[in-house]
Each structure stands twice: as structure tokens, then as C-alpha cells.
């Protein structure tokens, strides 16, 4: 501990003085409670790097990933979005970045008021009454929705309707271990029963199709089950608000609109519900209030606080509605600013642009001899592609041409997915990438 590390201010001289004032001889003696036999074990870590070395090493690593300029048509839960430059600018302000969960509202209004903005945006998009400030990701949010539905209905099974993201099903399964909920993965809403706390449906579904939610709500409600909709918030710029169609709980993934998939995370689980479930909700909630009377006659000002904390682990402990503590606040801030930057017109236009570009690409692919785009109904940004080769071969041929194709979904049960890849084109997919894809597929088609 001689020459101080840039992250640690105290010098040897500082330390000597502090030790003296504490009244101990050595720093090690402060650790005397630790069992001596276990102390200071051999630990092997790579050597420390100075900042320039660190930047050099990790910049090198970043280039070992496929270049961001490589055309890719992967979607399946992570979508390339156009995010305004103001988002990164604002969310990188250290007052936001380096703050903790806002336990002291007087000096945390930035985080709190932004949280209230976030809840408002989520409610507007989903058509729900109340929202929390965000959970880890869409899948864990959906799992929490299932747990909440089970608590609210006192039922012990949940139904998930295919096509649903397999990762999401997996996470619900993980979370269901605790209360030992039964998971029924259904092919049709008609199998919902009185045993089910909720019916969970994805919008658009895992294969990209836009669902008509109202009949699903009816089916669920007819059995006393809640309807949980797992919605892409971006698509909600165009699609009917799930709440208007009868949803009771809506979850969603906010990461993409917040900017940057980053190999999957940090993500952002949106969670909104009808107001009767408010006190059952997991996660932090921001409420609006006013200053307590100052006694100086001044009109109390408006402020924001974490509220309804009696649901939470740090108060309710083993009876809390969830164990969640740290969530994804900074991503929620980015999501909020990104959506508000688009505004009502922009979000609609952007979603329509996404729709048009995806449909145009699908049309062009369908026009290539040997290729087929099987449709399962109206769809948003993802579509199935079958080619003249089996799906894995088609994917391999495409990769060999420098293009990451859509996800191979040929092992799924839906008939349209047979030998198909799930392609995604969004408002942010460069034209040049789509053109390269068309050329590559045409070449593959010609050679097949």
C-alpha cells in the first residue's frame, strides 16, 4: 500500500496519522477479528493495469466482437432502435449516474421526479393505471407478474400462451420454483382454466405476429384469470394499448429504446397494472407529494418520494411483495427521455417506419426465387423466412457471406416455423444492410 492508487487518496503519511489517532500500530491489526488461519490466502489475479493499458486492452477486446457494422437480422427480444443523441448526453450526467436509490428525497428529486415521469410514460403506453419504476428485465418482470397474479387470485398455476420468448418462459419457471406454481404452456387460449391465476401473452408474439388482445382478455377473465401482456413498448407506439384491450398487468422490455443491447443487458423490465393491484406490486414506486408546512407561511412546493414502501423488503422483510432492491433506474431514465424525445408523433412515426421497412424487406425476400415468407397474421417487425436450404444451412450460408441472419426457429412446433429463420428489420436497420441481405439471399437461392 505504498504509492497510492489513483482511486484511493490516502497516502502513507495519511495512513500513519490515522493509525496513530485510532491507536493501533498497523492496518492489519484492524483485521484481527478475522481468523488468522484463513487470512491473506494466495489469490491469483491478472496484474494491475494503468488506465492507458486498460483502455488499450479492452478496446482491443471490443474489436474482437463482430464489428457493429456487420449486417445482422437478429431480433427475438433485442431490437436495434434509433435513440436520440440527447439520451446518452443526459443520462451520463454524474448526478444521475453516481447517485444511490433515492432514500433522501430532499437531495434526490432528480431521480425521483424522473421516476415519476417514467411511471407516467409506462402507464400511457400500456394503458394501465399504475407502474413501478422498473424491474430487472422483461422476463423477470413477467415472472413477478405471475407471482403477483397468483397472490391476487390465490391460485397455484399460471398459463403462458405460445409463441412466447423461450427465455421468458424459462425465467417464469425459475421464479415459480418458490411458491411452487405450476406452469402450463398453452397452444391456445381455450385451455385457460379456473386453476390459472393468469394467462400470459406476448405482444407481438415471439414470431412477430400482432395479437388481437381483446378476445384473449375475455378468455382469461371468463375463467377468473388475469391477463398479463408482455408488450414491446416500441410497438405500442402503433398498437392498441393493452389496457384498452382488457389487460390486467403489462410487462415489457425497455432496454432497446434506452439504447444499446450490450449483449443483453443492462435491461429494463417494465411493470404496470390496474390500480386494484397497487399494493400487491413488486418494486419501488414514486409518489407525488408536497413539502410539510414550513411554518414560515411559504406555499409548500411539490416533490416526489418513494412511497407505499410497506410492500418492500426493507420494511416488510419476509412478507414483502418481492425481494427487489437495486433495479435498473438509469436505464429507466434513458427509456423515459428516449420516449419523450420522440413524443407522441415521433413514436408513432417511428413505429410505422419500422413496420414499413420490415414489410418492404419481407416483400423483397419473398420475391427471391426459392424464398418464402410464411405469414401468421398481421405482424410488426419480425417475420419468418424459409429458403431453398434447411434452416441451419441457410443460416450458415448467410453467415459465410458476412451477414448474421435471423434466429433459427426451425425446432419450434408452429407449422410456419418449420425450416424457418426469424428475421428482424427495424427503423434502424441500415438500408445498406437490407440490400446486402437481399443480394446474399439471391445468391444463395441461385446456387441452391
Amino acid at each position, binding site marked *: 500500500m505504498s504509492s497510492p492508487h489513483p482511486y484511493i487518496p490516502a497516502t502513507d503519511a495519511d495512513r500513519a496519522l490515522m493509525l496513530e489517532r485510532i491507536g493501533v500500530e498497523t492496518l492489519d491489526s484492524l483485521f484481527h477479528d478475522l481468523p488468522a488461519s484463513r*487470512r491473506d*490466502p494466495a489469490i491469483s489475479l*491478472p496484474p494491475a493495469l494503468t488506465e492507458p493499458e486498460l483502455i488499450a486492452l479492452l478496446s482491443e*477486446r*471490443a474489436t474482437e466482437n463482430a464489428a457493429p457494422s456487420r449486417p445482422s437480422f437478429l431480433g427475438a427480444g433485442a431490437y436495434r432502435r434509433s435513440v436520440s443523441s440527447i439520451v446518452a448526453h443526459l443520462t451520463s450526467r454524474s448526478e444521475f449516474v453516481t447517485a444511490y436509490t433515492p432514500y433522501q428525497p*430532499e437531495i434526490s428529486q432528480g431521480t425521483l421526479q424522473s421516476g415519476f415521469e417514467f411511471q407516467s410514460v409506462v402507464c400511457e403506453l400500456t394503458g394501465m393505471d399504475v407502474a413501478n419504476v422498473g424491474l430487472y428485465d422483461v422476463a423477470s418482470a413477467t415472472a413477478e407478474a405471475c407471482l403477483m397474479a397468483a397472490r391476487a387470485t390465490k391460485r397455484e398455476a399460471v398459463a403462458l400462451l405460445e409463441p412466447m420468448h423461450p427465455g421468458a418462459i424459462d425465467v417464469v*419457471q425459475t421464479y415459480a420454483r418458490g411458491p411452487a406454481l405450476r406452469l402450463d404452456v398453452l397452444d391456445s387460449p381455450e385451455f385457460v382454466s379456473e386453476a390459472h391465476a393468469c394467462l400470459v401473452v406476448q405482444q407481438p408474439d415471439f414470431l412477430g405476429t400482432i395479437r388481437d388482445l381483446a378476445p384473449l382478455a375475455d378468455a382469461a377473465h371468463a375463467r377468473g384469470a388475469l391477463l398479463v401482456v408482455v408488450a414491446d413498448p416500441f410497438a405500442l407506439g402503433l398498437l392498441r394499448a393493452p389496457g384498452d384491450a382488457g389487460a390486467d398487468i403489462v410487462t415489457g422490455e425497455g432496454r432497446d429504446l434506452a439504447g444499446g443491447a450490450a449483449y443483453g443487458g443492462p435491461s429494463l423490465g417494465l411493470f404496470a397494472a390496474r390500480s386494484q393491484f397497487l399494493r400487491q406490486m413488486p418494486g419501488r414506486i414514486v*409518489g407525488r407529494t408536497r413539502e410539510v408546512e414550513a411554518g414560515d407561511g411559504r406555499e409548500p412546493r411539490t416533490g416526489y418520494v418513494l412511497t407505499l414502501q410497506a410492500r418492500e*423488503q426493507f420494511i416488510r422483510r419476509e412478507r414483502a411483495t418481492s425481494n427487489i432492491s437495486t433495479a435498473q433506474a438509469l436505464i429507466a431514465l434513458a427509456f423515459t427521455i428516449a420516449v419523450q424525445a420522440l413524443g407522441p*408523433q415521433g413514436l408513432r412515426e417511428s413505429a410505422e417506419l419500422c413496420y414499413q421497412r420490415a414489410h418492404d424487406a419481407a416483400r423483397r425476400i419473398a420475391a427471391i426465387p426459392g424464398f418464402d415468407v410464411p405469414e401468421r397474421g398481421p405482424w410488426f417487425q419480425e417475420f419468418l423466412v424459409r429458403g431453398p436450404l434447411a434452416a441451419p444451412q441457410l443460416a450458415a450460408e448467410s453467415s459465410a457471406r458476412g451477414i448474421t441472419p435471423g434466429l433459427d426457429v426451425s425446432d419450434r412446433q408452429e407449422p410456419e416455423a418449420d425450416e424457418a429463420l426469424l428475421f428482424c428489420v427495424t427503423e434502424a436497420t441500415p438500408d445498406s444492410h437490407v440490400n446486402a441481405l437481399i443480394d446474399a439471399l439471391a445468391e444463395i437461392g441461385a446456387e441452391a
Partner: protein
Amino acid sequence: MTDYRPAGEDFGARLSFDRGEPGRRAVDVPCWSGDESPLPDAHLLRDSLRLPELSQGELVRYYTALSTRNYGIDSGTYPLGSCTMKFNPKVNDLIASLQGFAEAHPLAPEEDMQGTLRTLLELRDGLAEITGLPAVSLAPAAGAQGEFAGVLMIMAALQDRGELAQRRRILVPDSAHGTNPATAAMAGFQVTQIPTAADGSLDRDTIERELDETVAAVMVTVPNTLGLWERGIEEVAELIHEAGAYLYADGANLNAIMGRIRYGDLGFDVAHLNLHKSFSTPHGGGGPGAGPVCCSEELAPYLPTPILEQGDDGVVRLAAPERSIGRMQQFHGNVGVLLRATAYMRALGLDGLRSVSGQAVLNANYLRVLLHGWYDLPYDRPVLHEVVFSGSRQRREHGVRTYDIAKRLIDHGFHPPTVYFPLIVEEALMIEPTETEPPEAIEALANALIAIAKESAEDPAALHAAPTTAPIGRLDETAAARRPVLRWQPPSP
């Protein structure tokens, strides 16, 4: 910037929704110039959407102003106990934002993601070394999710042992963080609370008494939330293992002991870490974090999916452990946070991490000594990374609550410490200076707290009225909970 708006302005009363004008916009969207595809049927489409309509400059100003109403680590000392609010090196953010990392699709072929995967492997190996627990999953998104994973792993192991039906209890100390009992309950276990002994360690007798074949696990925070080492933890571990239960380490306080002692060596079976604390990834006002879970070989098959595997070809791949409890998230965890943590680990190396824990402990003890006599210290012994005082004397003698002391500290330019936690300390003031505060800052904090202690006696009303220099005064939390207003509503016409 300083909040330059006039002091009387009720800034919070006007949300972005209440600003701007219909038709304004902060960004433009490109036009579609190709063939138009018909939109889906109208009943599938949204009719209206209420969102703010502001020009770019207005929106930037609004959120810039909001930021000025926040206090971050870069604003000053932020000694929030248990939260490890230390300096967040900027280079880590730079690294995570490199395009190759930031724009990677989670389903991209692993061969195309070796830059990310090799970096995560380095972190995984480092965490295994640091915890002495050989198997690691980086999937959990935060401490609580790491705990959940850990407890589910214990559950799955018990199930495989055929003992799950019988082992329904988890023992949790009364000093534990709320996530511990909440997690145990979420995993379907009953929680038995273990009292803290007079020296601040777990009450050994109670543990011995409670340990039987109904116990699945004991969750212990090491060092504990009093900032103290759990004396005799090794013997406790033996007792627990003899009783057929597992020992879980809440590793959120790793900052105190990094590089000096390891959970694995002490007999812990599984631990989660809070990289957003010990490894200094920014807290972001409440996340994102990362809560990797580390475990023994025995529990390794149950780790959450994905884990990392390096093939003989050197290629790092994602894998599902044999008897995995499953996924915690749709994809692979908070990778951006994990990259930052790796950069932090690499910037420090072993010596650096040892300096971190050494200085963190030195700083906490320095503060302990500086404040000695001014505030009660219920567990009066050398501490590790944090020190928990009690304001009960101030409360008793002057009617000043810890709450008031905390608010008054704001007027001195500091973020308040954690208050009223751990629950076992009356009027608790839980202070964690961290290793990144210089001695001068610790002295200044102590001086402010001493000034407040004096003021409690001389002018308690000043404390009740605090803070007076913050962007807003004390807020009515009762009203907020009683009549919840939780979202913007259009002004009634």
C-alpha cells in the same frame, strides 16, 4: 450547475408533460419513401397517445435541471452505510460504451462475441479467486437476484437430496438486510430470525438450538451490517454442515475484506456479490447492478443459466449447468455492468483490491474514533468497513431523532448516512466512508456530525427544520402514501 431557477419556483409541480406545446418535437423521424404496406386493422391500433411535446432544447433543459436536483458521489461525500458509495472510475463507463461491446446482440453467435465473452471469463475467474468459491454465474442482475439464485440453488440441491419437503426453514440474523428474509420467503422458505449477541456477532446459542433437520440454510452477511466480523463463523459453518444445511454468504459487504479472506475458505457454500458496491460500478440512482453468485463444486450444477465455458479451442461459450435452476433473465445478465466491474478489477489487481479493503476499514475506524463520545456506539469495538452509531442519546435528551440529524447533515454539504438500519440498533446511523474518501473528508464529516451533536443540545429546532439548503424541504411522506398520486394526469378541463 447550480439550480439557477428562482428559489420560490415550484419546479416539481410541472412535469415534462405539463411543458411544451402540441406539435413540438425533440427529434425528427425519417420519412418512408418506399412502397406503403397497409397497416393492420384499426382495432389493433392505438388511437391516442399522451406524451410530452417539447423541442429538443426544452427537453434537454428539463432533464438537466432535474439532474441538478440530485446528489451523486461526484457531488460530495456520500457515506450511505451498506451501500458502498465510492468513486466510480470514469474509464469504466468509457469501456462499456465502446461500440463493439455496447452494440452486441445477445443472440449473436458466440464465435462473434469473443471480445465480450473473454472479458466476462476474466471476471468470472477473478471472482472465483476472490471468493474462494470455484463456480460462478454472472447472470443475476443485482444483489437480491443473486440471493434468490443462491437460495434456489440450495432448494434444488435439497430437492435432489430428497430433503426439500422437510427442510423448510432458513435462519436469518436480525441484523440482516431486508432482501435476505424476503428472498428466503420468495423461494418458499420460512424465515427464523436469529438474534445478535452483545458483541455484535450472531447469537451462537440460538443457532445451535434452531439447527435441526428442518433447516435448509443459514444466510449470513459477512462482514455483517454492523460493520463487524462474524466471530466464530468457521465453527458455525461446521455446525451448519453437520446439521445438513447450507451456509449462504450475503457478500454485499465484500469491500471490507477483498483480497484478505475468502467465503469459500470459511466454509460458505454459496455467496452473492454486489459488483455495484464492491467493484464500484455506478449505482445510477437505483441500478443497474450485478449480483453474481459464486458457489462450491457441490452446488455448481445448480447455478443459474448461463455460465461460461471455455472449449479446448479457446472459444468461450455460454452454457447451462447440468441441473440449473434456470434463467434469471431473458438474456445473459447486466453485461454492461460486468464489463465495468472487470475493468475495475484489472485496474486494481490483487494489491489494489487489498488496498481497497484496507483503506475502507481504516477510514471507518478513523471515523469511529473521531466521533467517539459524541454519539452512542452500541457495539463498541473496532469495525470493518462501516460503523453504526445510535442517536438514542440525542433522542432521549433533546428530542432530536436520527432522522433530524440526517437532514441536518444535508445543510453541511453531505449526503446523510443510512438511518434506522440495521433494525437492531435504535436510532441507527450507519456510516460507510469507503476507501475513496480522503482523510480530510472524513474529518469534515466528523466535524459536521459533532457540530450537529452540539446543536441538538443548543438548538434542536434548527435540526427539526433541516434541511434548509436543499432544493426542496422535508416532504410529506404520509400524505404520499395515504392518497397516492403515482402518475401524471392531464389537467382536468
